[in-house]
């Protein structure tokens, strides 16, 4: 039980990961797909942050009286990954706008039908 | 000029000629002059190379080394010399013929025709002089690809279909089977050099030898051993000079030449005899000889009949290689030359009939011989040589092949050879006889029809005379064949 509770952040990571991945695969709406992708990425961010946590560690700022710090590197890494994620989302949404202009729809089935009927 | 340069010239002069031909496409006379001059030069070169070889010169020329230890290298040895002589000399004759034919028949795209023809001859020369299996394979493939547009020359749906079969089978077998065999050979022996006595002996379990040998024999699709023979009749949609030179000389002989070369220099005839690896393969060749002859009898189209006759005759050579006895190899090698001269005569005649009388079906040719005596006379001589009757060159190769079969104790094979000769008589001789003594179906008298253009006639006369000369004077080819078979 302790093991399960003690790692609750990892369970959350897995839950979010599955949720996000399922959304990407199952949804036909392009915007919802992007949302799912975001959830998926976020779960990975959480994973990194969890890795960086050190038991009884504090914020990694050097100060009097503290010797145990959390590992700052994963946080730095994940800042970069967040930026990448934002860029991906922006590009994805921009593409959706163009698709909407071209097809008049953001539903995958709809778009697929239009392409077939060409 | 040093010998290396001669070898290079023999291969690259036709290639250079091809570019010259392309440049002169606007001036047909100049273009044909280039063809003739190149062909004449190549003939001189191969003859000079032949005399140099007679004098015992060792000639090899290295071009590049694409894979470490596997250079592109050319070497002159008796077997290749024989093939080069045949291809080089007959190119000259065919060029003379082709000019008359192409103009007489008003073919389109003549520039492309002459240029690709020259490239094909260049790669045939490369095949002949290849110093290792990689070089041979390279030239073999260039030959395939460069002849493909020649087969499809007419551009009709039928020509395209034929050309597709042609390319499909030749590329398919060469990449699917032959390349695999080459790679296996390389991974076993660590080299692809042609060496006296072979490079595989002792490196391969005899049980597997047969399989590898089969990969080669069937992989060399140009040898047209059944069941990979379909491309040859399909290729008959090509203009007649193409059929004549490429499908009686260069392409098909490149195939059987490769079989011989692999047998002698990769496996080594002793190794094949010891391992007994050709015991079952030999029946494929035997069956091809008989079946192709039988099919030939059913064909009414003259070129189709000749095509199946070629398939049958090619398997004689393959048979000689598979027997792997000394006499068998000599017979097979000699047959390259003898069959080439005889078969090209037949094709020339077939083309002349097409140009002069516009006839392709044998049943329509009754009585035509009286209008075109020279053409059908040449056809008769060619037929007799193919059948193997004296005094024509074809007798010698059959003679040695027969002795080879006896040496190997293969009495059944000997009877195959004899039966096949009878079949040859049955499907070839009726044609000239019918033409000379028969009558046209509709009883018409051919008063309008004259002999084909003089250059066609000249070519036919040269090759049919050659058939006779080769009976009395086969020495040069015989010496080369003996040299190739190991000189024992």
């Amino acid at each position, binding site marked *: 039980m302790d093991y399960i509770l003690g790692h609750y952040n990892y369970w959350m990571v897995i839950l979010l990961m599955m949720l996000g991945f399922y959304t990407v695969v199952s949804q036909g709406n392009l915007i919802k797909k992007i949302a799912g992708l975001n959830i998926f990425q976020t779960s990975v961010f959480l994973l990194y942050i969890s890795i960086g946590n050190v038991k009884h560690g504090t914020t990694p700022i050097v100060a009097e009286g503290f010797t145990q710090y959390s590992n700052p590197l994963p946080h730095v890494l994940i800042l970069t990954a967040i930026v990448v994620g934002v860029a*991906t989302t922006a*590009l994805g949404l921009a593409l959706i706008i163009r698709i909407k202009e071209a097809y008049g729809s953001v539903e995958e089935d709809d778009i697929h039908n239009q392409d077939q009927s060409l | 000029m040093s010998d290396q340069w001669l070898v290079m010239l023999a291969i690259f002069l036709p290639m250079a000629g091809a570019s010259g031909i392309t440049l002169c496409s606007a001036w047909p006379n100049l273009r044909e002059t280039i063809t003739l001059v190149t062909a004449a030069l190549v003939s001189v070169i191969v003859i000079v190379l032949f005399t140099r070889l007679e004098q015992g010169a060792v000639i090899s020329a290295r071009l590049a080394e694409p*894979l470490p230890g596997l250079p592109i290298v050319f070497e002159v040895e008796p077997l290749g010399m024989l093939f080069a002589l045949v291809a080089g000399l007959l190119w000259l004759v065919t060029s003379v013929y082709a000019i008359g034919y192409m103009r007489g028949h008003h073919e389109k795209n003549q520039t492309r025709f002459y240029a690709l023809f020259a490239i094909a001859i260049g790669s045939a020369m490369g095949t002949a002089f290849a110093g290792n299996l990689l070089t041979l394979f390279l030239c073999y493939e260039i030959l395939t690809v460069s002849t493909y547009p020649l087969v*499809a020359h007419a551009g009709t749906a039928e020509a395209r279909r034929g050309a597709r079969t042609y390319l499909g089978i030749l590329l398919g077998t060469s*990449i699917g089977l032959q390349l695999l065999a080459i790679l296996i050979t390389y991974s076993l022996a660590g080299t692809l050099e042609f060496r006296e006595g072979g490079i595989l002996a002792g490196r391969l379990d005899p049980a597997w030898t047969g399989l590898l040998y089969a990969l080669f024999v069937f992989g060399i699709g140009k040898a047209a051993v059944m069941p990979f023979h379909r491309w040859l009749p399909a290729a008959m949609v090509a203009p007649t000079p193409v059929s004549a030179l490429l499908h009686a000389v260069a392409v098909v002989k490149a195939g059987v030449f490769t079989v011989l070369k692999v047998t002698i220099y990769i496996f080594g005839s002793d190794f094949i005899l010891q391992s007994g690896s050709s015991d079952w393969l030999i029946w494929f060749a035997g069956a091809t000889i008989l079946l192709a002859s039988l099919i030939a009898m059913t064909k009414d189209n003259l070129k189709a009949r000749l095509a199946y006759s070629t398939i049958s005759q090619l398997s004689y050579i393959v048979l000689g290689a598979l027997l792997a006895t000394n006499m068998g190899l000599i017979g097979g090698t000699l047959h390259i030359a003898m069959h080439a001269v005889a078969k090209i005569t037949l094709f020339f005649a077939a083309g002349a009939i097409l140009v002069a009388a516009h006839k392709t079906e044998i049943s329509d040719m009754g009585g035509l011989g009286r209008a075109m005596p020279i053409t059908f006379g040449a056809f008769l001589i060619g037929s007799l040589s193919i059948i193997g009757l004296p005094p024509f060159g074809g007798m010698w190769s059959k003679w040695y092949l027969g002795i080879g079969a006896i040496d190997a104790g293969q009495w059944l094979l000997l009877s195959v050879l004899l039966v096949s000769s009878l079949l040859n008589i049955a499907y070839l001789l009726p044609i000239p006889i019918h033409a000379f003594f028969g009558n046209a179906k509709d009883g018409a008298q051919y008063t309008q029809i004259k002999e084909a253009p003089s250059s066609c006639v000249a070519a036919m006369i040269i090759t049919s005379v050659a058939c006779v000369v080769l009976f009395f004077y086969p020495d040069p080819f015989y010496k080369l064949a003996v040299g190739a078979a190991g000189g024992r």
Partner: protein
Amino acid sequence: MIEQNLSLLLVAIPLLAAPIVATLPRGKLPWLFTLSVSWVCLGLAIWQLWLVTDGRIISYELGGWAPPWGIEYRIDAVNAFVALIVAGIAAVALPYALRSVEQEIPLQQTPLFYTAFLLCLTGLLGITLTGDVFNLFVFLEISSLSSYALISMGRQRRALTAAYQYLIMGTIGATFLLIGIGLIYAETGSLNMMDLSVRLPATFEHRTIHTAFAFIVVGVGLKLAMFPLHVWLPNAYTYAPSVISVFLSATATKVAVYVMLRMVFTVFSGSFTQDTPTGNMFMVLGIGGVLVASVYAVYQRDAKRLLAYSSVAQVGYMVLGIAFGTALGLTATLVHMFNHALMKGALFMAIGALVYRLGSSQIDAFNGLGRQMPWTFAALFIAGLSLIGVPGTAGFISKWYLVLAALEKSNWIAAIVILAGSLFAVIYMWKLVEALFFRSAPQSDAAVKEAPLSLLVPMWLLVVANLYFGFNTQLTVGIAQTAVNILRALPQ
């Protein structure tokens, strides 16, 4: 000075040039600037390769932070070779781009197009040069994001959906890679490849490392278009602008192959792959890729799509080389990376030239054009022979090594599959050749002119390279063998 910062410059120059191009006025200026940048990059890449051919290793510490804490650029023969492919194809593709982009991309977008192109180049070069796995992820995303944008600029609206599909799958792949990297970091506390190759073996027993390896292989496999993760590729290459099809087909998958090689052989050393069924997995995927994609290619009616499926099959060959894991197999993979870049580049350029004149890449539309565009046709023909692997062309060399590697392992199935792939290539290339040369052109159209010189020259440059590297393999095989020794070396 330049020599010391060579590797950094190779990434920094296109990166800095990208925003500058975006601000340049419309017209030829953005193109000219991009062209000069790409040529500078090519020069630097050649210089860099020349420095490492003898087996030397350049280690560049970014910002002066010593590895394994700081980011290290670590150049050996492997990545210098791949960087040369990327820079070389970019330098050849750009002269081609001028006319092709003028026709396919609206004028106001051209500066942005070239900006995205430079960013893509930055990303691809960065992936090859960096010695840090997280940095690799960042560069991977730079190249991917810019390529999504580039693909979406194709003139049919389906380019948009193709780009979107690629974006979704590419992001999933990159995130998988990120998960894998995170798990490795959790186990070892390091991100430096060389450092990892020393530290990882101690943890090979751990389940986490196996999971990490699986995530990384799937993630990179998506980028690599490794069968069955290839579904994004045919659409992306079909609808992208011509020059982008050329550039991506010749470089993007090659770089992904490089990442796979690095991950499998450097980060997780060869002993890990031997203890796990990795080899078998790659074998199955490679064989499946070659066969399935080749069959698909035969049935395509769009020339670009046909070539795209052929690319998936060619990736299968490279995967097979990885599966063998032997010196010969890896040599084959590396040589094929180079040769395939040459042949696919030339083929896509030829198709691009046809599209330039016709506006369509349907095979039926090409009927009879071989006579009207003889140079384009000849280029297509020769590059096609190279794709088939006819001797005398570059393609033959890679096939040769690959089959030898299969025979060396007595893997008959793989050897036969490789040759069967060649036979399929005969069939699908001949569909193109026959349409171009032997079918008659529709009567109504006015005569189609040969493609302009600016398209022909780069195309023929690659065609000649195809022939040259079929006869002289000192550069390709020589460097590949040095590179293979580095890849297979055990960590010290």
